[in-house]
């Protein structure tokens, strides 16, 4: 073993990695064969570095796309991409706990998010029906906790009977449940029923307005534009319109992004701790072989219920942080199953089972697959000087490639979904473990590569 390893290190470094077949290359202690390989390896060891590098690459791309339009465009796009990257990362982390760690194939994410954000809205909204669907008028933190609790409770309801189902049945049940949730929130009869019984409403298909964002109120008195608080004055004066010249609303947006980043760190630490513990070991064992875990004295059903509830609570929170900041929520199209698939793709890109992978998957998904194609499409459309054909058939009949390109770039949304589908298929074909899936995340609270030093002379 050691001979081969040292042997693999001594030959001259081949400039292009991959031609030198060293089977030990991916083992612990195996040295990279090329300069690029070394960079990638170094990045892999440093999770934070990997995340920051990904973000910087995204920013570089955004800058390239918008720098001609001025500072505000650059920072505006960066804010949008960071926001989306963070909310997808939050959702992916929560799903990764189910799917990556425990192997629970939950594709009802959209439903659990909807439960979280709607509960929060109902708890916090004013009881006065004059402002739309009435609520309980309680403080925001109460609403957030209630939203998480409600999502966890629905998760419990789903988990209790679904525990014994095969993975693909669980998938169909959770998808069905998320559709039931969406249709229920959509239903005006349900809205009326709630108003008649407990005096609150969902707003039915029109949805409901979200409580004002406390981050915005940090900068602006009562959230009104043009009425900054003392803190707002200070910030706007340095980086905002009074300083660097970034539009104030973009500055406020960045404020919220910072809050999301704090939550992301919280999610990450929480899930890393869960994963690197005997609890996480049990989850991993359930994913690998339930019967073994059972035969070793682990109460598999109880563990599954717990993890389902924790994951759903986090999905609820992710839903609140995401859609709760968007002004208005409505069941359709916000909580369609497509949302679940987006999150799934983010998890799969990063490699299920890896928390860092989920974060990177979320950022990459948001930038490259979600927002990127739209921006690129409109950028290309901007340089084409031709009218857009009315329909695909018209574009084909015109026999003009420029007209066709104009049509394609104007209808970039479906192309983006096609691209997304192809990426998903390609990943399943080529890299089913995801981009970072070959990382071994050890489920233990201590480093397993070394023995305890204390143990040697103690006993």
């Amino acid at each position: 073993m050691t001979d081969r390893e040292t042997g693999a290190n001594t030959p001259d470094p081949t400039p292009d990695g991959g031609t030198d077949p060293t089977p030990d290359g991916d083992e612990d202690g195996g040295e990279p064969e090329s300069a690029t390989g070394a960079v990638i390896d170094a990045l892999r060891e440093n999770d934070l570095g990997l995340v920051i590098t990904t973000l910087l690459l995204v920013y570089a791309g955004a800058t390239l796309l918008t720098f001609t339009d001025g500072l505000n465009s650059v920072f505006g796009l960066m804010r949008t991409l960071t926001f989306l990257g963070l909310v997808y990362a939050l959702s992916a982390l929560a799903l990764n706990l189910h799917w990556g760690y425990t192997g629970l194939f939950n594709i009802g994410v959209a439903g659990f998010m909807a439960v979280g954000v709607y509960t929060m809205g109902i708890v916090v909204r004013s009881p006065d029906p004059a402002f739309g669907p009435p609520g309980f008028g309680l403080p925001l933190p109460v609403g957030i906790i209630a939203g998480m609790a409600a999502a966890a409770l629905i998760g419990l309801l789903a988990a209790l009977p679904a525990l014994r189902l095969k993975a693909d049945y669980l998938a169909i049940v959770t998808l069905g449940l998320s559709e039931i949730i969406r249709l229920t929130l959509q239903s005006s009869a349900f809205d009326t029923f709630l108003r008649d019984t407990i005096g609150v409403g969902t707003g039915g298909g029109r949805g409901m307005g979200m409580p004002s964002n406390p981050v915005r109120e940090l900068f602006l008195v009562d959230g009104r534009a043009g009425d900054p608080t003392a803190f707002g004055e200070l910030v706007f004066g340095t980086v905002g319109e009074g300083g660097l010249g970034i539009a104030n609303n973009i500055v406020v947006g960045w404020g919220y992004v910072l809050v999301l980043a704090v939550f992301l760190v919280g999610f990450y630490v929480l899930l890393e701790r869960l994963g690197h513990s005997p609890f996480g070991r049990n989850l991993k064992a359930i994913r690998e072989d339930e019967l073994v875990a059972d035969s070793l004295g682990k109460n598999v059903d109880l563990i599954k219920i717990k993890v389902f509830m924790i994951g759903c609570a986090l999905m609820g929170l992710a839903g609140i942080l995401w859609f709760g900041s968007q002004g208005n929520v409505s069941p359709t199209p916000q909580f369609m199953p497509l949302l679940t698939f987006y999150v799934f793709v983010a998890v799969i890109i990063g490699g299920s089972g890896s928390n860092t992978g989920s974060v990177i998957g979320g950022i990459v998904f948001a930038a490259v697959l979600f927002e990127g194609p739209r921006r690129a499409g409109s950028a290309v459309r901007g340089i084409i000087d031709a009218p857009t054909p009315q329909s695909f058939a018209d574009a084909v009949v015109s026999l003009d490639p420029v007209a066709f390109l104009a049509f394609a770039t104007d209808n970039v949304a479906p192309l983006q979904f096609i691209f997304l589908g192809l990426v998903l298929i390609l990943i399943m074909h080529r890299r089913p473990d995801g981009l970072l899936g070959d990382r071994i995340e050890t489920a233990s609270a201590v480093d397993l590569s070394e023995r305890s030093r204390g143990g040697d002379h103690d006993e």
Partner: protein
Amino acid sequence: MATTEPNLVDSIRARPGLTLVVAFGVLLLVDLVAKLAGISVGPLGGSLSTGRLGSNLWNGIVIGLVIGLAGIGLSMTYSILSFANFSHGDLVSTGAFTGWGIAFLIAAFGEQPIRALLSVRGAGNVSPGEIGAHVLSTPVAVLVGLVAAFVITAVVSLALDRTFYKPMRDRDGISLLIASIGVALVVRYVIQFVYGSSRRGVTATVDASNLVIPATGLSINAHQLTILVAAIGLMLAMHFMLQHTKLGTAMRAMADNKDLALVTGIPAERVVTATWILGGGLAGASGYLYVLLRGTIQFDFGWLLLLLMFAAVILGGIGSVYGAIAGGLVIGVVFTTSTIWIPSDFNEAAVFAVMIAVLLVRPEGIFGGVSTA
């Protein structure tokens, strides 16, 4: 020692979930009878005309046949290829768009621009009335469209298999399921890109197309009748194929026990090919018929039907072709008659609830566990 003779108390204790579901069903039935009789006892009863119940049931059967027809293919892929195919719903849409494109072409060739016809009114400004597709006025066009929907969707699904699924034939069901979500996105949005995203009318209206059955007041329209005949015809053909041809026997054997079938020398790839051709074709045909029934088309309607199809297949027991049909009928009837009890915007949720209940109480399906294929 306790007696092994089963009695009511024991079976209730053994299957509390099932008992609950049965009790709920009985309650609904009692309530239905009370409603028909116009009696109110506390929360039960009320009033309901036999005419409304009759038309609910009839509509349910027609929708159910379409869902069941689509479910056959889903059930076949599940049992023979061992994965839940999330792209099946979009094959349904594929059949509808391509089939109606052909039907339009035949119905109004030379009268309207071809691009408007083939794109199912995605291009140009042509109204359904100007095209005039209806089974009474243009029967040949409607029939050829059905055949085209079957054939084109069969070809598409085979092409999808060769491109996307074949390279991962030996993979586990979950990987294939995830890949099928990707395929579903590709198919659905290719349809949107080509045909546009608007919901639009398809069939024309024709005078005196309704047949009223005198005694009941039940009104049956010509398209519903067409669907009844076409769906039952396709199902019978499928039955004949499975029971009386060599290929059908091989398919049943594969569905029953894959390993055993492979050992006994069944040509696996040929069976897989046949599965995609038949399953895809039936999906396409059912999508075409669904549009005939509803009169409108939209790029994602098949995807929205997918969960209903899953519900039908699960209800009937996965892998059973007859189960899929029976499940489809149950789903269709639940879909239309549930509005007797609950607000109409909840009927889809009611169907999903039935599906979940069945999965939890009797995962092998209500008709399952008896026969396969």
